[in-house]
């Protein structure tokens, strides 16, 4: 028996497959990346008081850039967690720290990798439900992704 299936019918019947793929949840699961974009972080308009970022304004290589952070909220709130975000990196989330016992003052240092010259963001969540954010620019003359070290 010859199947009664023309090319047009085949396309019609299989079109739901491409539509289903397009609208599937997995396609949109990448949207959390947008929450780390420079534009999104700027649009949040979070207060910057209480966060100090020390990062060299010019780095010869993006492979290892020393960075130190001090978070001391001006209100009575305590620091519950914070994130270091590099919006132009392939993986924007650099470091996420959570403190089971919120602290009034937090000071820490680390070394980060930057793919491009960019603003590095620190977004801290406080125990009163508010967030504060601060950014610092770092110009990288040799980026971390194309260097073989």
């Amino acid at each position, binding site marked *: 028996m010859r199947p009664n299936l023309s090319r047009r019918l085949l396309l019609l019947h299989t079109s739901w497959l491409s539509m289903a793929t397009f609208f599937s949840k997995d396609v949109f699961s990448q949207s959390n990346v947008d929450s780390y974009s420079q534009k999104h972080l700027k649009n949040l308009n979070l207060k910057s008081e209480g966060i100090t970022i020390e990062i060299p304004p010019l780095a010869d290589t993006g492979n290892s850039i020393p960075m130190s952070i001090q978070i001391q909220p001006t209100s009575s709130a305590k620091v519950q967690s914070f994130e270091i975000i590099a919006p132009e990196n392939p993986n*924007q989330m650099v470091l996420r720290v959570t403190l*089971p*016992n919120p602290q009034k003052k937090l000071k*820490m240092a*680390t*070394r980060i*990798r*930057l793919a491009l010259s960019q603003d590095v963001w620190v977004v801290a969540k406080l125990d009163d439900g508010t967030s504060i954010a601060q950014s610092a620019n770092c110009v990288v003359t040799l980026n971390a*992704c194309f260097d*073989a070290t």
Partner: protein
Amino acid sequence: METGYRLGEGGNDRIPKNIIENIVIKLNQQVLMNADLGTGIAANPLLSIFVEVPKDGGMISVEWRDDLGKQGRAEKMLLAI
């Protein structure tokens, strides 16, 4: 630490990602800090923190876990003078 973006010697194959994913710092068995690390941390990672030592001192421990499931742990006694 390997980011997963680096190419091998031939320039063809990517070196698989291998990074420390999680570090937990405990003081006297109480979690002080839980850190999730991304590929944006330097290949030779450094996390420097300030800890308030209790009057009686205490045991500080650092536990790490990488994306291959390897784990490590180090601890040191803190003395308050």
